[in-house]
Each structure stands twice: as C-alpha cells, then as structure tokens.
C-alpha cells in the first residue's frame, strides 16, 4: 500500500515517536478526572455493602444512620426501583441474572451494595453507612466452581448455576476422541488461572448532574463516553440525547470500565430521584473487593500429535467462576474462538461453561480470551518436551505462514494475512537460541536454572459490524479560519494517547504541523457513536477514519486552491501549512489565507462548493483485522527460594502500520507488566465463607518497577487491509505475556519435572511456594490441602458430564406423539455466546419439507430445505455476522413449545427454546 500520496508534504508524522499531546496537562496536575469535578450543591455517596456472601435480608434499619450529621438521604432498592432499570451486557443484551442496582431481598456476594448513603461529604456518608443496621439470614455460600456444580442455586429463579455455555459435548465422542485414540502422542495439560482485580490506578467514579427537565450530565470513568451514554439511556429507557457523558481523563480502564455497572447506574438513578448533583468515588477497598473481577478460569486441553509433532486433534474443557453478578453472563466465556486458526489442526472441539457463585461477578479484562493462548502455548511446550522436539520446531511444523493463506480453520475462521510464523522467524533471527541453550546447560551444572519461553499468538482486533456495540468510527476534521486544524472524534484515551496518534495521522495526511492540530474527544456530545477503547480497535478504525477524512479535507483544500489559482488540482500540494501550486511559487498561500476565503468569501469558491474547510468520514473497516506476534522471555529461577527473575524479554509483533512506536510499545509493555503480575504476583483469593482476602494493595501485589524487565521490540509492519494499514495492539501483551513467562519458568524447571507436577495442573500465580513444589517434588505450598480438585475434564476416555443439579442441555429426543402443526410464528430464544437473542421464527411446511424465516429488528433471514419428521425439525440458516457461519438447528416440537439446540460453527452449540407467538 502506498501510505503517502504525493499531494501532501514531505514531513512524515506517521511512524514517528511524536511526544504526546495528553502529557502537558497530565504532567502538570491539570488533567480532568472525574473526582476533580466539583459542582454547586453536589452531595457525596457511600455504599453500604453486604458483609456476608449469601443470605436473605431480614431487615434494614436506617433510623440511627439517618440522624447522622450531614446525611441527606439513604436509599435502598425499594427507593431506586421508582425508576425501572434493566441492566445489560456490553453487547446490549439483557443481563440474565436477577441483578438490581442495590440488593433486592437477597445478597449474593460480599460487597453486594445494599444501601446508598447521600451526605454532604464522603466522610459523613461513611459515618452514616457504618451505622446502618442490616440483619441478614446467612446461608452457606458457593465459592468455587466445584461448589457451583454441586451446591444449591445461586439465583433461586434460575434453572441451574450455569451462567453461560458454549461448545458441543457430543463432538468429543463423535469426532475428536477417535482421532485422539489413534494419535501416537496425546498430551493433556491443565491451568487454573487465579482471580484478578483489574486495578486501574483511578478507581471507578461517577458524578451525575440532573439538568433541566429530564436531562443529565454524567462525568464518569469509562472507556467510551458514547457507549456509556447509550448504555445508560438503554437501561433507563431514556432517549440517548438526554444523557451526556464526559470523560476527559480516565486513569486506566483495562475492560473493567467498558460499561457502567451497578454503582454508576445507581448514581444516575439516585441523581434523578434526589434532583441534585451526586458524586461517587470508589475507594481502593471497594475497588479490590467489590469492582467486577476477572479471570478465575480452569481449562484442560488435550492434543494429539503424530511422531513428527504435527497436530492431529484437540479437545478443550473450560470453566470460569463468573461470580454472582457477571457484567454479562458470557464474561470470560468466548475463549476458544481463536485457539487454533493460526495452526494446521484438522479437528478441534470444546465445551465451556461459566458458573454462578457467591463471589463478586466477573467483568472484562485486557485480552478476555487470553486463556486460549495460555493453555495452547503451554501445552505445545509440554508436548515438545514429551516428544523431544525443539519447541520452535514444533511451532514451525504447525503454524500457518503467509504462503499458506488464505485458509479456513476447522472452526470456520478464514485467515488471509496472519503472520505469527513470520513474527517467530523474525524473533529467532534476533535471539541466539543456540547460545542460550549452551549457557543454560553450563548454568545448570552450577545449580543455576535458566529458562527460555517462546510463544506465538494471533488476535482479532478492530472488530466492527458483527456485534451490537462494535461499530465503525466517525471523524470530523476541519481547518478553522485561523488556519489551525480541529478534529472531533469519538475515541477515548485511558492512557492510549489517541489525541496524539490521530493528530499524527492528520498532520501526515494534510501536510500541517502536529502542533497546529487540536483533537477533541472524551465527550458523548463530540463525534458519533463508537465503543471507544474495546477490543484493540481505536488505532485501526479511528485511525482509518481519520486517515480518510483528512484526505477528503486535503482534496477540498486542493480544489479551492486550484480554483483560485486557475490551476489543475494535480498541481496543488500542501506542505508545512502552506498550499503550493506547481510552477507558480507566487501562488503559494498559507492555509489561514485559504481558510479565510473558504469561510468568508463564498463567491471566490468553485460554483456549488460548500463554504468552510471541513470533512467528515465514517469508516466501516473489515469485520476483523488480525494482529500476530511471537515473544521470547528468559528467566532465572532461584532454586533455594523459588523466586523468578526475568532476565530478558523480546517482543516481535505485527501491528501493521505503526502510527507512533512510543505509543505502540507502551501498549505492549503495559500488557506484559500485567501478564507478569498474573503469572507471579497478583491474586484475589476467597476464603471458604466467600470473603475476598486481598482488600488492600498490601495484599494484592501489583507489579513494581523491580518486577518488570526492560522489554525489547521488533516490529514486523505488514500493512492490514484497512485504510492506513493499522492492526490493533492494545491487548496483545496481556495475551501472549502469560504463556511466554510460564513457558520460560517451565523450561528452567524442566530438570526437576513438569511445572504441573504429576497431575499436570499448573496453578497461577506461580508463587515462590509453588515453584518449590516443582523443585522439591513435594507439597511445599500446601496446594493439595487447599485447592479443589480440577473437574474431570480431560477427555482421554470419557466426556465430562456436569453433575446434578445441572440441567441437561436440551437435546432432541425421539418423537413423542405427533404434535400440532408448526406453521406460523414462534418467539424463539437462542442462548448464544454473547447473550441471549430473541427473534421471531416463521415456519411453513409442505409435507416433511420446511421453509420460513427468522426475523429480528436487525433484519430477516430466510431459509428453505428444512425437514420436519415426527416433530423433529432440522433446518440451516447461513449468516454473515459476526462471520460466515451456518447455523444448524435441531429442535423438537412438543405442543406449544419447541426445545433443542443450534450448532453455530466456531461458537459451539446454543440452547434453543420457542413458544407460539
């Protein structure tokens, strides 16, 4: 792709380490974070939270608390219910758990908000909160995934404790197990990932100010003011225009802040009820114990390989502890989609479940599907050790390189331009692996244990057009009459530096100085809808939109200049804020002169041309843009203490066009630091009573400057198919970091045995105690005494079957008595991975053949060629979104209800239910 057309000047900004526009205010204490907002008459909120994990609220006595100085109001759910709220997931689908803003009769986890105290100061609100008397009839909580499988229902009105599930259990027996049985080598590996507290440095925060009649201005720590405004309007049933969300500076998001959650929505509702501005600033104790958590996953992967190390088949069984109130039942569920598209793997199947428990609900966290790379890359290394094959060679045998593409994976994902293999080659060309192996062997003789981990991964970034909030981006750019440039974007930076990178694109494409560009963002009143920072998308989509909008603006500048100079448009160039006409230096004008004409002297413009100098473009990129990387990490493990020292870390990533290497490397580094925290330090444990045990940063160990080595970077720069050629890079470090470090540690400890011990289970974080378990081949950490057994997930012999009281996935059974006619409309629900989908199914039968359509507000999908025999209905629907898949329905009619399942390609199998419309 030709990045740099000749119409703009010679100065390049894209690709430069341009200093960030955001820094001046942030370095001088003049940023504007939510807690910096002070409004006349503003009151402060403190929440009263449940001290127990599960129970019935018998009574709440507010009398004493209400008498405290400064207290204005104390609300319970009964008060807030005056404004009905239907909480939704990130995908704008209704939350399925019976979540309310404040506890409604029951508490389901420690930290559940029960009351809201409104007072003149936060301290006064806390004084009163301490005096609220709650009587809760405590019940035994379900804390672990194992508890959820066997215990009573977390939510009494649900059928089971399964929050969400994907995959096809039948596939193991039908398709995968026979291949595994024939495989010369079978390797099984289990990883238990601990619960993480996302811990942005700025805790959650919300200021809500009711303005006028029914309007509301909300300042909020969020990842997109537009998404937050749309979310608030939807859950409150208000017109979106009535809510304006402002978030100029936000101190980190990392997925936690991708939607407003209970506390923030409650502030907005309370502000409407109370009629005055309210502020809630979450404190760190709340943030650690009562903000949505992340991870807490258990996954077992089994792979079959031939004697050369080529993959033959794989099966994975995954579960996550979704807590009581996940921010969407699918939180941390969709981990299998990108497990294998970069590998030549003939057959893959999986089953995955999220479980409700009486712990804090899960939310998003950087790289929510990261577990797929962690289990894949660690299992591949284990296989390499077992087969005696170099782990790099094992990857070379199985990875899909550029000449192999386009190719469609077994799960139906087509890849056209992924480069994990190319990144790997670039990496090993820059790391002397042979020299390291020699050094490692020498060191071992001295009792020093060095290890190297090498991994690859791919990541779908810049997703657009496949799921509700994942859209394109609109950019408006204009040259003001002053000659300076202003851009209005719906991007949001919680550290991403989008004002910087977008200004670089504008400077580059327009031929103006970077300093002359102002970027406005961070306000739902600016720009059009976009989900902001979500899924590594802003550089790709907003970057592409800015690229194109700026080129349109440059075209207009050139058209005006050509007209004024009576020259050809092709003769006009813009450089350094000056407009030049080839061969006529006397015709050169500054952009300011040109802008004054464009705004003030319409008569001098070409006939029919709009005045002003502005352009707007909404960019709809391809549905996904893939980013690839390979990483290498070198560690030394101290065999006496079990401490891990990271000696070297090299990233070889391909994020296409790099707008600003400083920003790109910053994203990679931040993700890697979080990865190091996950592997070595961070953990949010719960005790058996459901109490979170890391309530301060003394106990929740965040990585410090001494825990993170200097990272080295290699950039591959294969342009993507998007405008500008960018690929997303926000999450990659957090995805590839954990397996790289775990593999390095496993390599270091290989003289002692497998990191997972005899059972093949690795539990994170790899604390010094757990490292000594491996080195000493005994239970130093007390692991066996404390940890619950991993569910029987390994599929070597039999598929895992959920224990009672879990309801069996509805499956077609032989036809009972022939049912009534199916013809007509049905309200059908598909329990799909990204929340439930409800639509109208219309059936028409002719004998045993079936046709019809599925209709939802987004559109209608016709089908034909189906069958109906004895009430068993089979039909197929082809869809393009989120990618090309064929939905295979297999359902059973019984009277006025239909139940069954739908196979959804890579998305696994969903439950289907329907009733007559």
């Amino acid at each position: 792709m030709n990045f740099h057309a000749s119409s703009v000047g010679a100065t390049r900004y894209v690709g430069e380490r341009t200093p960030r526009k955001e820094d001046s205010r942030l370095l001088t204490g003049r940023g504007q974070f939510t807690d910096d907002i002070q409004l006349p008459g503003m009151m402060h909120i403190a929440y009263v939270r449940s001290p127990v994990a599960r129970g019935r609220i018998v009574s709440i006595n507010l009398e004493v608390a209400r008498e405290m100085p400064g207290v204005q109001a104390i609300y319970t759910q009964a008060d807030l219910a005056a404004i009905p709220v239907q909480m939704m997931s990130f995908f704008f689908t209704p939350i399925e758990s019976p979540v309310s803003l404040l506890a409604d009769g029951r508490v389901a986890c420690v930290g559940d908000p029960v009351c809201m105290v409104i007072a003149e100061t936060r301290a006064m609100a806390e004084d009163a909160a301490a005096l609220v008397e709650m009587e809760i009839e405590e019940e035994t909580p379900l804390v672990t995934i194992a508890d959820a499988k066997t215990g009573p229902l977390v939510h009494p009105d649900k059928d089971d404790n399964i929050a969400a599930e994907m995959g096809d259990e039948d596939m193991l027996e039908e398709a995968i197990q026979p291949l595994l049985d024939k495989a010369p080598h079978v390797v099984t590996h289990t990883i238990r990932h601990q619960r993480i507290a996302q811990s942005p440095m700025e805790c959650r925060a919300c200021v809500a100010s009711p303005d006028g009649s029914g309007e509301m201005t909300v300042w909020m720590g969020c990842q997109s003011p537009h998404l937050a405004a749309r979310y608030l309007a939807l859950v409150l049933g208000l017109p979106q225009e009535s809510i304006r969300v402002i978030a100029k500076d936000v101190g980190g998001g990392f997925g936690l802040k991708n939607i407003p959650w209970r506390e923030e929505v409650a502030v907005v509702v309370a502000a409407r009820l109370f009629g005055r501005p309210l502020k809630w600033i979450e404190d760190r104790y709340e943030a650690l114990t009562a903000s949505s958590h992340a991870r807490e996953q258990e996954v077992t992967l089994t792979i079959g390989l031939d004697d050369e190390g080529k993959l033959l088949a794989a099966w994975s069984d995954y579960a996550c502890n979704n807590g009581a109130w996940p921010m969407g039942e699918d939180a941390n569920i969709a981990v299998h989609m990108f497990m294998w598209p970069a590998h030549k793997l003939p057959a893959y199947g999986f089953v995955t479940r999220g479980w409700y428990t009486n712990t804090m609900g899960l939310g998003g966290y950087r790289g929510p599907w990261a577990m797929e790379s962690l289990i894949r890359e660690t299992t591949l290394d284990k296989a390499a050790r077992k087969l005696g094959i170099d782990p790099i060679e094992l990857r070379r045998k199985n990875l899909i390189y550029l000449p192999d593409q386009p190719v469609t994976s077994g799960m139906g994902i087509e890849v056209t331009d992924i480069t994990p293999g190319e990144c790997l080659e670039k990496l090993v060309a820059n790391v002397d692996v042979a020299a390291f192996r020699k050094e490692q062997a020498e060191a071992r003789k001295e009792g020093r244990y060095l290890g190297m981990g090498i991994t690859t991964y791919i990541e779908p970034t810049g997703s657009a057009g496949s799921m509700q909030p994942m859209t394109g981006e609109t950019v408006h750019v204009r040259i003001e009459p002053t000659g300076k440039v202003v851009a209005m974007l719906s991007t949001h930076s919680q550290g991403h530096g989008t004002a910087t990178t977008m200004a670089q694109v504008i400077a580059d494409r327009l031929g103006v100085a970077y300093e002359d560009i102002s970027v406005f963002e961070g306000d739902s009143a600016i720009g059009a809808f976009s989900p902001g920072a979500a899924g590594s998308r802003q550089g790709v989509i907003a970057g592409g939109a800015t690229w194109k909008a700026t080129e349109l603006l440059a075209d207009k500048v050139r058209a005006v200049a050509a007209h004024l100079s009576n020259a050809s448009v092709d003769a006009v160039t813009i450089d350094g804020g000056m407009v030049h006409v080839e061969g006529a230096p006397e015709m050169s004008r500054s952009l300011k002169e040109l802008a004054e004409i464009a705004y003030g002297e319409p008569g001098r413009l070409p006939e029919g041309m709009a005045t002003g100098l502005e352009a707007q473009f909404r960019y709809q990129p391809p549905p996904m843009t893939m980013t690839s990387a390979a990483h290498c990490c070198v560690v030394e493990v101290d065999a006496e203490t079990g401490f891990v020292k990271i000696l070297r870390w090299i990233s070889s990533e391909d994020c296409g066009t790099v707008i600003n290497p400083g920003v790109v490397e910053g994203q990679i580094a931040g993700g890697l630091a979080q990865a190091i925290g996950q592997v070595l330090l961070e953990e949010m444990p719960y005790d058996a009573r459901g109490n979170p045990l890391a309530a301060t940063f003394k106990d929740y160990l965040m990585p410090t400057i001494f825990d993170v080595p200097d990272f080295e970077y290699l950039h591959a720069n294969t342009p993507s198919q998007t405008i500008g050629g960018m690929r997303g890079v926000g999450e990659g470090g957090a995805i590839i970091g954990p397996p790289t470090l775990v593999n390095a540690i496993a390599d270091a400890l290989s003289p002692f045995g497998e990191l997972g011990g005899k059972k093949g289970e690795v539990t994170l974080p790899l604390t010094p105690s757990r490292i000594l378990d491996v080195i000493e081949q005994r239970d130093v950490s007390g692991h066996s005494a404390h940890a619950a057994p991993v569910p029987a997930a390994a599929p070597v012999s039999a598929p895992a079957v959920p224990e009672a009281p879990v309801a069996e996935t509805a499956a077609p059974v032989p036809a009972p008595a022939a049912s009534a006619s199916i013809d007509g409309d049905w309200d059908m629900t598909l329990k799909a991975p990204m929340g439930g989908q409800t639509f109208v199914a219309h059936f028409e039968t002719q004998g045993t053949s079936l046709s019809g359509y599925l209709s939802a507000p987004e559109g209608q999908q016709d089908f034909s060629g189906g069958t109906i025999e004895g009430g068993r209905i089979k039909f197929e629907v082809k869809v393009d979104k989120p990618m090309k898949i064929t939905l295979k329905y297999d359902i059973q009619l019984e009277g006025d209800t239909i139940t069954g399942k739908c196979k959804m390609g890579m998305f696994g199998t969903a439950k289907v239910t329907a009733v007559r419309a």
Partner: protein
Amino acid sequence: MSEHKIELTVNGHRHAATVEARTGLGEFLREELGYTGTHLACEHGVCGACTVRVDGVAMRSCLMLAVQADGCEVTTVEGLAAPDGTFHRVQQALQDNFGLQCGFCTPGVAITLATVLQDNPSATTGEMEAAMSGHICRCTGYQGIRRAIRQLAGENA
C-alpha cells in the same frame, strides 16, 4: 471531632483554613485548595500517586493529616514547572520517554523523582529507581519511567 486552624504554603501560595482533625492532607489539598493534581489512588500508602513534598521531603499525602501540615511548605505537581510553564526536567524526561499513559500515578512519580534530584542533583539511576519502589503504575510497565530515569541520570553524568 476537633477542628483546627492551620496555615500552610502550597506551591508558594499562602493558605489559611479550618480543618477537621480527620481530614487527610491529600484530601485537603484537593477538596479545599483545589490542587487536584494530587491523586488519591489507594488511601493506604502503597501506590504513591498522592506523593507530595512537605518541607522539602517527599511523602504520602494520604498518610498525613492536614492538621499536621500546619506551618509547612508543600509542593504539589502543580508547583513543579517554572512559572512560565517550562517543564521541570523530570516532567520533560517523562514526556520524552513516554513515561506516562493514563497519567493518574504520574503526579506522585514526578514529585518523587524531582525530590530525589533536589536532594542530590547527581542522583544515579539506581537511587532514582530505588525511590520508585514506592510507586505503582498500571499502564506503562515502567518502561518509559525507567528510560526517563536513565535520561535524568545521563544529564547528571
């Protein structure tokens, strides 16, 4: 719940106020005096975001009461740059090296490094890094901060 009259100087400006005994210095600087550059990110003395300089010494403003600052000279991040807006060399080094992303921890980091350099203008990389152990940054992986430190130490060399 006693109240106390205090006088202090912040960034060269004199302030008098009446404070509740329990009001923390950081909260007082933010809420009463409007120096919102000082960020409270943990309020239990671990993260370092609220670090300010009190009588020439860097300390946690969440671990000190406003009443204890009576008579003190306080410098916050707003007081680091020159009156004409020229960055302090620590601020410049942080910007030059992409030493900040979200910027929430940054005020404390800047105060700490500026204070180490104030006490010892030829402070080494090791001395500055050691002082950084008391700061948590969730965004940068400390890469840009470490490069900034090397730049500052290099200026010294």
